[in-house]
């Protein structure tokens, strides 16, 4: 069945014209994933501020989005990640590693908790598929991915922390990403990759 819902790309164009309703819809679609990420890395006390700051950035930068350069989701998540990792770097390496450890444990063996009826925003199957794929990754690959992506560690920092050669860290990161993409392709079809 065709959806009548406007795409993210249509909504962000409206946000660029200061449409608060479009902004609210994008909030509904993305807030939960930004909040969960922020809550794990900076704690739930600061996570609300982080979410607000990320969405204010969306409000301010909406006019800069160019759909010829990629999907909205990729662009917005990049903004969120940049903001979160910038904030994270103010914390000690040890704090970031602790946060990454907790995330890694969750991704390795947590059940999908997204099925609550109030979580309308979280209807995207891709996250659930990716969660399943992450659980099947070798732990050392999942670990480097989590340390780099969610906790914002650089590859040399990961190499030092894990006592692994830098080349190995790079290889594990690439392998993890490749496997996840293959898994997504299998689950959802190759159409997903077209937008990247």
């Amino acid at each position, binding site marked *: 069945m065709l959806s009548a819902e406007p795409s993210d790309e249509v909504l962000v164009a409206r946000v660029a014209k*200061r449409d*608060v309703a479009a*902004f*609210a819809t994008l*909030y*509904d679609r993305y*807030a*939960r*994933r*930004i*909040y*969960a*990420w922020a*809550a*794990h890395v900076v704690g*739930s006390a600061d996570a*609300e501020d982080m*979410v*607000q700051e990320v*969405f*204010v950035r969306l*409000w301010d930068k909406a006019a800069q989005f160019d759909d010829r350069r990629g*999907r909205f*989701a*990729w662009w917005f*998540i*990049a903004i*969120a990640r940049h903001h979160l990792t910038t904030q994270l770097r103010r914390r000690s390496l040890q704090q970031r590693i602790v946060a990454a450890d907790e*995330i890694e444990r*969750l*991704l390795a063996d*947590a*059940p*999908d*908790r*997204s099925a*609550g009826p109030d*979580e309308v925003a*979280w209807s*995207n199957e*891709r*996250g659930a598929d*990716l*969660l399943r794929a*992450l659980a099947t990754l070798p732990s050392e690959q999942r670990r480097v991915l989590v340390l*780099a*992506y*969610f906790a*914002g560690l*650089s*590859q040399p920092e990961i190499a030092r922390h894990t006592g692994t050669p830098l080349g190995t860290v*790079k290889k594990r*990161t690439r392998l993890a*990403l490749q496997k*996840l*993409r293959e898994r*997504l392709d299998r689950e959802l079809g190759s159409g*997903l*990759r077209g937008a*990247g």
Partner: protein
Amino acid sequence: MKEEMKEFDAYPEVVESLPDALAAASPHRLPSGLRARVLRAAEARAGRSARRLEMRTVLRAAAVALVLVAIVGLVTWNIQLQQALAQEQTLLQQFRDKAGQQPLIFDIVDSPASTKINLAAAGPQRAGERPPYGKLYANPTFTQVVVMAGRLPDPMPYEEYRLYVTSPSGTVASIGALPVDASGFGYLVVDTGARGPTFAAARVYLQRRSATAPDGVLTLQWESR
């Protein structure tokens, strides 16, 4: 971090879904009041943007007005400058016509070392003409001063234009009468007896020939600041 970013950029469909995966696994749930708070922040920002836009429009209009005022000012100043130059050229030309045989006068008038005092109109003017004007030249190597004036109203037969100068110490003295022709032009060369004379003020009065003090009609004047 740039290297990691490049790596991540090569897998956009994975990267954009990683937060989805974490949200699926996470026990953290969105606080219910957060949505309203974020929307309020956006609306406040929208209001600020509108006010900023309004302010920018006002500032832009003010800047345009300022530029216009500056242009009008410049044009006016330029016209006045041109008039002053034309006036001076006319005066000098009249002066050359009259005093062509006295090279000493031109040594004073044309010397870049000379001090030139502009005498501004202070009283009556010729009918249908612009106000009278005058110049006083003094030079550090000469004891003489040269005074010239133009567009002075015709004096009555019993009147004359007389120049009074005030010394830096405050002494007022007449240094001579300024004979004028039919066009109202006249000049005067006076030997002050001292090289490079300086003055605190200079005034031209239209007064009775018999007068011995500065009274009558003040016609031209200058005062040092």
